[in-house]
Structure formats: structure tokens, C-alpha cells
């Protein structure tokens, strides 16, 4: 009997060695260790053995079964692995193929730029305050210290309406007085965004319609040094932590002292390139301390209150950041332009 067991064991081992692939292995298992398999059926021999022979036979049979099970398990694992590898190999794709495009939308580049500005100034406590596009000459000019026929008015060619004294605002500074009259006597920290209009030839460099963001702070403890600090921090957050700023004396009727702020060119790091016209500096904004006449027109006593204001052009910022060379793109609404942002 033991001899038969050993023979069968040998046969089974040889058959297992010969079996290749999962199907063959599973067939081997069925024929060998399955309920009707050759080795399994040897269990029946136990009954025919004497009580003395039985334990040795039984032990050996269990050893054989366990050995075959283990060998099978090992070989099956290898076969499964090989199968998986083959499957994987057959499923290789050209990973450089373009993907299937989702249908997506985007906010306009100006929305995005304004949101960046809101966030940076928001972190410094400036809240958004919006005012109207169609304004009075009084708000846009007179109360901002531009008397009629003053040469400063010629810096901003206005669109007039058929209503006497009603114009399209030429700058978001037009909202300063509205903000002051609304906030008085509280201190103010606001940004005034919005669309502005000037009667200018539309070219790659100038538009008749453009957005602006005005910055306005009023309080009893605000200095020109604070203006410099606030705008320098803005420049660093917007254009990079290592930006240098330069303040130059300038003129706006509604600020005194007035300044232009330049930042060191972030394209050439101040070495000089065609974007900064080889000066190393980029003009970013105009600013200054709120003129006492304007404070007074807004309701604040210029002996007690001080303030600063600055005006930025979101288009200019976007043009510099993304190298846009034609300002007319902003309102042309060409998807090939808009989808790049």
C-alpha cells in the first residue's frame, strides 16, 4: 500500500511539474487532490489497513497531501502572477496620447486678477467697496480737486453724456467721496474696483474702457511711510517676495504728496529687458496722501485725519504677469485668449 502511495506521489509530482498555466494546474488539482482525485481517493485505503499499519500510512498520506498542496499553491501563484503580467503587458497604452478633454469653463482673466487683489488687500484689512460707473462730474472731478478747465482734467479725456454734469467715470477715485461720506466718522480701509472709461484711441496700448482698483485708507494715524509700507507689501505678495519698490514724485490733483510706484522688473530682476524698457523698473501704480480738500469734501477734518490712496490697473498687472502685448484682448472675448488663464 505504501508503495502504491509513493508511486502515486511520484506520478502526481511529475504531473504537477508538467502542468503549465492556470487551467492545467487546476485540472491537475482536480485529478489529484480533488474529491475524485487520485491522491484523495487513497484515503479509502486506510480502511483496508491493519491497526498497526494505519498510523504510518496515514501520516505519510497527510505528508504527501500537504507537500502536494504546497507545491501546487506555489506553482499556482506563479502562474497567476505570470497571467497578470501578461494581461498588464497586453494592456500597455501610449501614455503620451492626449487625454479626453472635459467641458470646462473659467472666470475671465480680469475677474481672476481682481480676486488676487481682493485677497492681498483683504489680508491687510481692506474691504471691497463698489460704486457706480455713470457718475457726476462733481464726484469724478470737482470734489477730487479738479476745478473746471484745470489742466489736470486733460490727463483724462472724459466721455460726457447728454445729461449736463453726468459723465462716465474716468477713474475709480470717483468713489472716494462716496466711501468717505458713507464711513464718516469711522476710519476707512477699502478697495474700490470697477470699470472706467476714457475717450482715447483704442490701440494695443490704450483702451476706452478699462478696470481700475482704487485703494483708500483714512484715519487719524496714517502717514506717507505707511503708504510706502502697505504698497511695498502688496508688490511683494503680488509679484514676488524679492521685489524692490521705487517711489517717484508725481502729480494727482487729489493727493499731496503724490507718487508713482515702480517695482523692480520681475522678468529680468532689474537687469534691464525690453519689457521694462531697459530701466529695470516697471510702473505699477500712482498713489499719494489724500489731499486735504478731498478729505474735507468727504467730511473728514484734514487737521485731524490723514489718508492715502492708490490706483492700480488690473489689465496692466495681467499684461505684465502673462506677457500680454495687446490690451484690446481683454474685451475681445476670444476663447483662444480667455482659455489660457
Amino acid at each position: 500500500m505504501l508503495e502504491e502511495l509513493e508511486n502515486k506521489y511520484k506520478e502526481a509530482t511529475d504531473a504537477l511539474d508538467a502542468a503549465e498555466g492556470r487551467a492545467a494546474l487546476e485540472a491537475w488539482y482536480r485529478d489529484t487532490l480533488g474529491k475524485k482525485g487520485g491522491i484523495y481517493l487513497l484515503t479509502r485505503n486506510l480502511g483496508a489497513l491493519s491497526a498497526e499499519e494505519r498510523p504510518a500510512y496515514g501520516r505519510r498520506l497527510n505528508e504527501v497531501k500537504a507537500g502536494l498542496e504546497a507545491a501546487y499553491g506555489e506553482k499556482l501563484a506563479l502562474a497567476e502572477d505570470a497571467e497578470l503580467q501578461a494581461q498588464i503587458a497586453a494592456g500597455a497604452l501610449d501614455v503620451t496620447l492626449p487625454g479626453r478633454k472635459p467641458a470646462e469653463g473659467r472666470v475671465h482673466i480680469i475677474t481672476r486678477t481682481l480676486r488676487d487683489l481682493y485677497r492681498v488687500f483683504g489680508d491687510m484689512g481692506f474691504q471691497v467697496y463698489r460704486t457706480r460707473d455713470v457718475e457726476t462730474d462733481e464726484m469724478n472731478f470737482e470734489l477730487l480737486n479738479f476745478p473746471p478747465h484745470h489742466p489736470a482734467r486733460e490727463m483724462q479725456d472724459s466721455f460726457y453724456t447728454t445729461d449736463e454734469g453726468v459723465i462716465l467715470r474716468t477713474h475709480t477715485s470717483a468713489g472716494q467721496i462716496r466711501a468717505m461720506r458713507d464711513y464718516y466718522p469711522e476710519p476707512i480701509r477699502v478697495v474700490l474696483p470697477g470699470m472706467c472709461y476714457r475717450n482715447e484711441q483704442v490701440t494695443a496700448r490704450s483702451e476706452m474702457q478699462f478696470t481700475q482698483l482704487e485703494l483708500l485708507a483714512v484715519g487719524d494715524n496714517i502717514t506717507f511711510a505707511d503708504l510706502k509700507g502697505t504698497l511695498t507689501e502688496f508688490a511683494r505678495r503680488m509679484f514676488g517676495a524679492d521685489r524692490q519698490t521705487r517711489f517717484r514724485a508725481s502729480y494727482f490733483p487729489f493727493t499731496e504728496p503724490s507718487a508713482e510706484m515702480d517695482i523692480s522688473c520681475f522678468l529680468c530682476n532689474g537687469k534691464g529687458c525690453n519689457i521694462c524698457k531697459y530701466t529695470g523698473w516697471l510702473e505699477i501704480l500712482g498713489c499719494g496722501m489724500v489731499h486735504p480738500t478731498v478729505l474735507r469734501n468727504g467730511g473728514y477734518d484734514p487737521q485731524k485725519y490723514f489718508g492715502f490712496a492708490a490706483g492700480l490697473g488690473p489689465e496692466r498687472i495681467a499684461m505684465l504677469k502673462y506677457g500680454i502685448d495687446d490690451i484690446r484682448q481683454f474685451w475681445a472675448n476670444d476663447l483662444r485668449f480667455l482659455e489660457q488663464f
Partner: protein
Amino acid sequence: MRVPLSWLRDYVDFDLPIDEVAELLTNGGLEVESITAVGLPGAELEWDRERIVLGRLLRVEQHPDADRLVLATVDYGAAETKTVVTGAPNLFPYIGRGDLSAEGLFSPLALEGATLYDGHKDGRVKAKLKGRPLRGIYNDAMLCSEKELGISDEHEGIILVTSDELRVTSSDRSSPVARHPSLVTPDLPGTPLADVLGDAVLEIAILPNTARATSIIGVARELAALIGAEFRPPSYDVVMDGPSIDGRVTLSTENPELNPRFVAMVIEGVRQTPSPYWMQYRLRLVGQRPINVVVDISNYVMLEVGQPNHTFDYDVLRRRADVYAPGDPIHIVTRLPHPGETLTTLDGATHKLEPYNILVTDPAGNLSVGGIMGGLESEITDGTSGAATTNVLLEAAAWDFINIRRSANALDIHTEAAYRFSRGVHPSLAMLGARRAAELLRQLAGGTVAQGIVDNYPRPPEPVVVDLDPVYARKLSGLDLSLDQMGEMLARLGFTVENQGDRLRVVAPDHRMDIEGPHDLVEEICRIYGYDRIPSTRLADTLPPQRSNVKLEREERVRDTLVRLGLQEVWSYRITSAAREARLLPGAPPDDRPYVTLSNPPAPDRNVMRHTILSSVMEAASNNTRHAERVALFEIGEVYISGEDGLLPDELTRLAMVMTGKRDPRSWAAGSEAKFDFLDLKGVLDAFFADLHVEIAYEATSHPTYRPGRTARLLAGERQIGLMGELHPGVVKGFELRVDRDQPVLAADLDLEALLPLIPNFYRYDSLLTYPPVREDLALVVDVGVPAAAVESALRQSGGVLLRDVTLFDVYEGSQLPPGKKSLAYHLTFQAPNRTLTDEDVSKQRGRLLRLLEQQLGAKLRE
């Protein structure tokens, strides 16, 4: 304003590189927009210091073999002289005159290897000078014209001048050019030409408050203050050794508020020769054409000190008016025009005059528009008019700057004089300018200045006195400076400063017409201190009370939601025209609400502020259908509805969407080729309102913009908040969308003023139920006219708390049903929060639903 550096050096000493001068001025508020070098490093044509030098003419001989060439021998500082073969016509008069060294004639000499512009070619073509024989005589040098040196386009002859003409020879300094260490006496042969004529011209931007810098001395004064150097104004002394001016001229100014000062002088026996070379050279550097010594001096003084002035031919004035008896003075009157009066200006143009255009006139008529431009008749134009000498009436006046500005704009005459007067020239300068011009006419044109000056100056303005409180100055600037420091900086700029212990009493100099109060003085202090040296600090002021900005936040949320739903945001021109917008209303009467109308529109089809934002988005869609297969756009912005007279228009926030073309973006991996249709827009809107948690009902309606039968109005309760649907084909055609025939163009136009307030701040979330849901399908047959929304709403209302969800999955109309009927099939989801539903529960619900729907809508279960 163009400022040659060499001219600046007449009034201030500085030893700084050009770039640093430019940066100092720029930071100080006089922005240098460009630097144009002449002959110096950085110039388009840099003059080789070794090979382009000053030569002194020694003799001129005829070329033995050529009539049109001469041999000019020149001393250029070397051991040997150089003989040059040249055809310069201005050398011909010197042929055969022997030794010319006593004449002191100088000319720029270029030696072999020097790069010059080719004088015989059009434009500026560089060429290197090479030796070659000219009619048998070897020549390796050249005497140069202005064109060859890149100074001007002048190529009639070489530059040939005496050393006196190279130097500024006005009386107030012997040789300011020589004063500068880098410049040597310009009469030493061999001196590099760059040291004699090399220059750099700064182009300075003039702002409304820097009128003081429209003169060379104005810029020099600023530069002196910025670098802490001495400012030396020119001398205003005049040698008056002619007869008295009494009885020669009388003045009356009828409108002193418009013409506060008028100064006149008489200079006799003026020779109308060309002006000295140095003066011509400076005028050319700043872009003026030299004419003759009289006109040139007038222009030179305007540029130098900033006072425009006028030279009349005295004898012409006397002759042209036949009212004067011998011995009568000529009479000059400034007045406003008579009705219908016109003026013919120097350029020959006749101008209609506005009632506020102030004129300089005499008994024969008008002579000029004051402060703007002279008339034709009495002007001294050139030296060829006959008489060898002229008697000159010199005029310098002051004008109201706003009136000049209005007048210059109305007449559309923009002269150098108007440029200055319209920015503000203090009346005190009229006297200085007249004196300066008279003295130059005496020195450079051989004139004799009549004794006395006629000066109409009825009401000199009070000086501007400002008290500066140091506490205010510190609070405004953030700079901790002492009173003395502040005073010193102001004094440098020409302010008169008195330290009164607790404050400075400051008197503004006349040229500072921009000074009104202490804030202006603080700017001056900051400027001179240097904006860059002022510290940068963080705001320490109290944070204002924070306000919420609900409208903006909700608008931004609407943007984000639409972007997530696959739409691209656009921003459009808000200036449009009624005709552009009328395209939205084909076959319907136009929008009769009043527009905000521009009185100076940029174009005929951009003349009003928009009424509708859908027109804007349609224009954007139209532009994109030329190249894009999938167009899904939206815009959020204001529309403008003109209100009653005297009120500003309503500015109302609107949202419009337009969708057309392929639903899926094109991809090589097959996507759907299907095009957007009504249900795509509807789906976007459904998702949009669901996201905002606003309940909106759709109701079929009709509107001229939309296609009949595919139009819905959007209702929030009873209130209409917008329209949506497929656009009317006439609209698609009107906006010239490039779409296939029958391709739907979908649009929605929403009133955000109404919608945004409906967005709730809070809403209840649906708790996640753990007991299993039971799904039931139900197909209902209703009349074709019953809206799906009515069926769904009836299902939801009738379903009770256990009905959690209703989803339409099929719509059928056709042969399987009786005519006039349709079938709507729904997935219904029942779920209880506290138990597992039984079949009995569900069948009870289902029975109830069917009963109620039959009652309400006549719905029957589809068999």
C-alpha cells in the same frame, strides 16, 4: 520739455553721469522719458575721440584738376597739418586768401577710420572714412557737415565757425562751457569734438504741477536743489543806452483779469543776421529750427527762462495804422474780440474767434491771440525782408492760464507759448523775460535798447505765505525732521523761510504757482529728502469696522457655479448702440426705455450705455463661432437704465448665458458629436439653482428674442427673475453667428438684483438615512399639453414624507399611445427614517399617488 545737459550747466554745476542726473530728476518728479545723446557714448553715432576732432583752418587752395573741389589745410593739434580734399561750398570764398590762422575759423575734422553718416545718402547711413585719391590727390580726412555728424540734416556745407560762436557769449559769464572740468577751451585744435559739441538731451515729462520745469532754468533750479548745489540764474541786467521809450509806445489792457501784465521794450537798429552757432546749435538740440537772430533770441529766452515773448517790427506797426501823427507813440491794446472778428495767424490760417479769446491789437486791427500765436502782418520772420536793420518792439506778457487753455483748445493752436501759458507763467517772469531778450538783442544783434520799460501791471498778485506746523508735517510724512531741516530743504528750492520757533513761515517763490498749503510744502520736503529715504511702515491705525459685502460674495459664487458647469466668463464693452441691441428684438418694436447717451461717442455705433447684457454675450458668441466648435459663455455686469432728469441712471446687475455648438469638446478619443439643445441649457440652470438653493419654476412663455414654443420664464414664487430658451432664428441671424442650419443657440438672461437676495445664507441638509430605500418605476399617461414640471410637482406634493426622490427617465409620444397623449416614466425612491419599508407600505403610497394624480392631472398608469 527737452533739456540739453550743456545748457543746464550754464546755471548749475554737477559732476554726475547722465543716467544719475536722469534718475535724480525722475525720482524728484521730473520724469526723464528719454535721453538722446549727441556724439557722446550712447549716441546713435558716437564721435570717435581720436578721429573726430576740432580743426583750425589754415588755408584753402583750388584743387589743380577739379573746379568743384578745394584743398583745405587744417591744424588739428598734431605735429603735421592735414590737407583735405573737399567740395564744401562754404570754403570757396577762402580760396587763395593765404594764411587764414588769424580768422580763427574752426571745423570738425574726421580722420581715416572714423565712422560718420554718409552725407550724400538719404537718411542716416553709417560709413567708415577710408583714404582714397580724389582727382589725383590722396585724401584720408574730411571736414564735416551737421548731417555727417548726426546733429541735423544740414548738408549744404561743413560746420565752419569762429571759436566765439562755439561758446556761449552772452554777457553774464565769460565761458560757462569752459567752466565744466570735462570741457576744455574750444579753440584748441585737436580737441575731441565730443568735448566741444557732444551733448545729451533729456526729454522731461511735464505734469500739471511742474509748469516751473518748462524752462531750462526751471529744471536747473530743481536739479540744484536735489543735489544741494548752487543755482545761478542768468543775469537780467540790460544796458539801456538808446533814447527814451517815452512817446514810442503806449499800452492799454482792457481785461487785466485775463491779461494781468504787459511789458514792452524798444530795441533799435537790430541786424537780422543768423544767430551765433552756439544758439542755433542749442535750438536744434531742442527741436527748433533757427531762423534769424531776432526770432532765435525770442525762442531762446522762452526756452531758457520760460517766458514766451514776441518781437514786432516797430516800423511796420507804425506804417500799418494810418492814425498816427508823426511823433505819436504806437498804441497797443489787449482786448476781447469784436463780434465777427477773425485773425489770420503766422501760418496763414484764418481763425474764427471765441468771445473769450484775448487779442493783442493796434489801431489797424489785431496782431495776435494773446499768449498763443502771432498774426501775419507785423511778425519778424526772416532777415531777407529788405532793410539792413530793424527796430523791434519786444513784448512779454502774462495771461490767465485757464483762459489760454480754453482758447488754445478752441482754436486748436498748440504752440510753445500756449503750452507754457496754459500751464501757468507768473506775471513777474514777464519783466525778467523782456529784460533778458532785450539784452541778448543788444549783444548778439547789435541793437540799442531804448531807455525805460513800459509795464502795465495793475494788480500784482500777493505772495503765497504758508505756515508749516512741524507736527502736521511729521504726521503727514512719517518723517521725524526738525524745523531747521525742513526749512533748509525749502530754502534750496527758492522758498523764503522764517523759523518762528513752533512753525515755519514760508513764502513761495513766484515760479511756484502750485503751492497752496502746508501739504504742498510737505511734498517738497519729501521730494528733496528723497522719497526713497522715507521709511516703509505698516499701518498702525485702528482697523475700521468690518462690513459684509453680500452682493459681491453672491456674485462671485454665481461666477464659480457657472464656471463649474462648464461656461466661460466674458467681459464686454458696456458702451454700445441701440441698433446693436435692437438685434435682440427682431420684428418687435424697439426698447423704448431711455438710454444713457454719450455726447462725444467714440464711434457712431458706440454711443449709449447698454440696456441688456445678452447683447454683449451674443457679440462675444458671434466672434467665437468663427473658430470655436463649442461656445458656452456668460457675463455678469451692469446695465444702465436712464432715470428721470437730474437723477443718475439705475445700474443693475444682470447675468446672461449663451450656449451653442458641440456639447463635448472635440477630442481624438470619440466623444459625443451632439450639439447643445434646450435641455443642455435647462440642465445648467437646474444645477445652477440647485447649487444656490433657490427654488425656481419654469413656465412656458413667449418673447420676441426667443423661439416660440421653446421659451420659458423663470419664476421665484410670483416674481419673474429671467427668461431662457432657444433664441429666435432672427436673433441668430442678426448677430451673425456662424452656426449650422437648425443648430440651436440657447440663451438665458437673469436679473441678479432679484436673484441674489433669494440665495439663502443657511439651508437644512438632508440627513443620510440608514434604512434601505425602495425603488419603484411609474409610467404615467397624460395629455400632451401637461407640463412635465406639473407632473413632477404633483408627484412630490402627493408623495408624502416617504417619497424621497423623483427622477424622470423617459418621455414617450407615439403610436403606442392614443393621439394627444404622452407617457412620462419616473423612478420613485421611497425611504423611511426609522424603519425598513414593507411592500405593503410602498404599494399603499403608490396607490395614493395614482389616485391623486388622476384627480389633479387626469394621469393614468401606463399599461
